[in-house]
Structure formats: structure tokens, C-alpha cells
């Protein structure tokens, strides 16, 4: 039987490290280049999930009247907004055309964007299992499916809580299940969208036995792999579920197992 430690050390010893020197590290030009690179990556990765880019803004005001939340297929993904904002969608898009994500790609120093990103990072909490997140987040509402009924073996669980959002990723055996839940109960209004890197096609609806109707789309990447994406708005919650490596039948079975009555 081989020894893992020896094998791993042997391979790591062969990894080449670049030669560093003090003068290069301390040069002002190099420092600024590194800082620009790090800021750009912070903005992108704080706002990205897998192959998606989430462009969102939520007006967070002590709310007592939340209007209906709408979600629809737009461009290469989903868009959502409260009803009032959605009515003005064209005008709203024009006023906010230069999003933080676009500024990230420009590499400019967007102080407001940086503030929002760093703020989000401070609030982020990460968990490794359903038990941990349930223990760590009092009153958590999350319609997570029954793992034992899910196809394949769940190898890894990741849960991330940032402000009003919960993100879940379950990985195993060539399959990835992702869920993003947003709670707008404390918002006066919002507007957000998710853009998938791959081409979107086959828009349709799926109605569960609980009588909840999801808007469903497919994405296909350059390797011919299909992703299935389902979105729904229930009460003040918005849910986007992504299936990679699942057949449509498997994906819909999982949607059936997600109890959305928890949102009432």
C-alpha cells in the first residue's frame, strides 16, 4: 500500500516556485498592479456564482409594504423585480446601465462598488452541512430537498449566507445542484438578474403537485453539457435552482421534493 503523505510531498516538491526578491515586491508599480488585480477579483467573485453573473441591487428600507415580486426570462438568464420596478423596467435599466460587474471588467477603482462588495464579504457566513447551517442560522427558511431521494451520491455540501441571500451547492458524481434563495421581505423594492455564460434555450413552465409553477430554461455549453435552471417567486422569496448533470426528469423530481409552503 502506498503512503499518501510521501506521494503528495514528492509531487509538491516538484512544483516550481518563482524566484522572488525584495526590490520587486516593494516596487510601487508592482504593488499597484497587484492591488488592482485583487480588487477586480474581489468584485467579480463576490458577485459571481459558478458560470453566472448576478447583477443586483436591492433598496433596503424599513419596509412595510412589499409589492409582488416578478421573475422572467431575460436575455441569457432570469431577471426579477418588484412589480412597481418591473413596470418601469426599460427606464430602470437605462439609469443603471453601468453595473458594478461591468466596472469590474473595466478595472476601474469603483469606490461605491468596493464598499458594497466589502460589506457583503463581512456579512458572509459559510457552512459545510445542513445541520451546521440550521444550527447557525436561527429561523432559517430553506426548502432543501431530501438528499436520500436525490439521484447520485452527494459528496460535498456548501452553504453560504450573505445578507438576505442563502446559496447552496451540493456536489457529487458528475452532478451539481445549486440553489440561490433571496428574501425581499425587508426591501421596499429590488431589481436583479442572473446571466448564464452559456446560451439559454427551451423556455417552459413546470407546475409541481403543490401547484407552484417554475419558469424553466436550459443552457448548453461548448462541450454539449446541458444545465437546467428553474426560477420561481413565492411570497417575498425568490428561488433560482440550477441543475448540472441531471436529466430533466431527475431535476423535476427534485423540484417536486422541495416544499415551498415553508415560504408562508
Amino acid at each position, binding site marked *: *500500500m*502506498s*503512503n*499518501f*503523505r510521501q*506521494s*503528495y*510531498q*514528492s*509531487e*509538491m516538491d*516538484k*512544483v*516550481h*516556485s*518563482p524566484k*522572488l*526578491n*525584495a*526590490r*520587486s*515586491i*516593494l516596487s510601487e508599480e*508592482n*504593488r499597484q498592479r*497587484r492591488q488592482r*488585480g*485583487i480588487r477586480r*477579483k*474581489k468584485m467579480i*467573485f*463576490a458577485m*459571481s*456564482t*459558478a*458560470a453566472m453573473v448576478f447583477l443586483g441591487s436591492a433598496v433596503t428600507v424599513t419596509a412595510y409594504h412589499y409589492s409582488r415580486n416578478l421573475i422572467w426570462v431575460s436575455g441569457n438568464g432570469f431577471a426579477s423585480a418588484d412589480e412597481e420596478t418591473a413596470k418601469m423596467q426599460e427606464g430602470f435599466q437605462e439609469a443603471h446601465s453601468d453595473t458594478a460587474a461591468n466596472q469590474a471588467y473595466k478595472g476601474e477603482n469603483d469606490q461605491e462598488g468596493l464598499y458594497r462588495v466589502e460589506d457583503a*464579504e463581512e456579512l*458572509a457566513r*459559510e457552512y*459545510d452541512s445542513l445541520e451546521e447551517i440550521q444550527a447557525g442560522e436561527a429561523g432559517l427558511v430553506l426548502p432543501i430537498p431530501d438528499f436520500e431521494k436525490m439521484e447520485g451520491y452527494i*459528496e*460535498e455540501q*456548501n452553504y*453560504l449566507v450573505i445578507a438576505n441571500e442563502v*446559496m447552496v*451547492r451540493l*456536489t457529487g458524481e458528475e452532478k*451539481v445542484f*445549486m440553489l440561490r434563495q433571496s428574501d425581499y421581505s425587508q426591501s421596499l423594492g429590488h431589481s436583479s438578474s442572473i446571466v448564464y455564460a452559456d446560451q439559454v434555450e427551451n423556455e417552459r413552465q413546470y407546475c409541481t403537485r403543490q401547484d407552484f409553477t417554475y419558469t424553466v430554461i436550459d443552457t448548453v455549453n461548448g462541450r454539449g453539457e446541458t444545465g437546467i435552471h428553474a426560477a420561481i417567486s413565492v411570497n417575498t422569496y425568490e428561488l433560482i435552482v440550477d441543475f*448540472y448533470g441531471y436529466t430533466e426528469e431527475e431535476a423535476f423530481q427534485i423540484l417536486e421534493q422541495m416544499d415551498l409552503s415553508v415560504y408562508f
Partner: protein
Amino acid sequence: MEQEKDRQQAIRDLEDKIDTYSDLLYKLAWVRLKNEQDAQDVVQETFCQYYKSAPRFKSREHEKAWFIKVTLNSCRKIWRSAWNRHVILMPEQEQMVQREPEEDYLARERSDQVLQEVLNLSAKYREVIHLFYYMQLSVKEIAAVTGSPESTVTSRLTRGREILRRRLKEEMDFE
């Protein structure tokens, strides 16, 4: 004049730290970020921070722990890799790994797979696997530099080993 002497001394001290730690920290950042340029940037920023803050250390172990912790914190700021869906072999890796032509083919193939499967783990598992098996830190030391409870470190090590056992073709002794 005095100021210039102090500055030169600080630079010599920095160079000494670079000689001692750069290889270790670079490999840690490389495994964590799976990107050569990012890893290099993180390590340079770590040394830059050392130069600016000039921390005092109680011992060599304390010093090493400080460098590891700062490097890991910088990695986390750059890369929220828990949400990185695709685990891909970095194109740079093929050039980075120097192979000995006389090396036994089977042994080399086995080692290749070991490193590849560690890189295929998600960040939280490959981080503790690397700290434990390559940097030879104890569970307690890993907990200290990662800011996680010892129980979390233990469960991540256990889980990381389980995944590696399943994926590695050959049965391995994980000590």
C-alpha cells in the same frame, strides 16, 4: 543617514524571510487558488505586509504561523472558491512540474494522480490536506492559522481523505 541604515536592515530582513518562506507560501497559495499568477501576487502581498507592519514574533513557530495565516487570508479575499463550479487542471501546471526522466513510470503516474486529485478537491478540503500532509501542521496548528475550530479541521480532514480514497485508483495509507 540613520533612517537609510534602518531601511537597508529592514530590506535585508525581508530578503531573509523571502528565502525562508517564499517556496512554502507560494505552494500553499498555488494549491489554494489553483492559479500561478494569483499565487505569486498573494505571496508578494504577504511579504509586503510583513515589511510594512514589521511584526514581532515570540518564536520561529509564531513567525511561521503568521506568514501562513496572512497568506490564507489573502487567498480568501481573492477567491471565494467554494462557488467555483468547475475544478480544472491549470494549464500552467504542466510546465510547472519538473519531472525527473529517470523516475519510475508507475511511481510518477501514481504521484501525478495524487496531486491531481488533491487539486480536484474543493478549497476547504485541499487546504487542510495540504497543511496537514505537506506543511506537516497539527490539527491544532491548522485550526489556529485557518481560524476554524479543531472539530471543523478534523471533520474536513476526514472528509477530504474519504473523497481521495474513493477517487484514487490505488489504495493508500493516509497514516
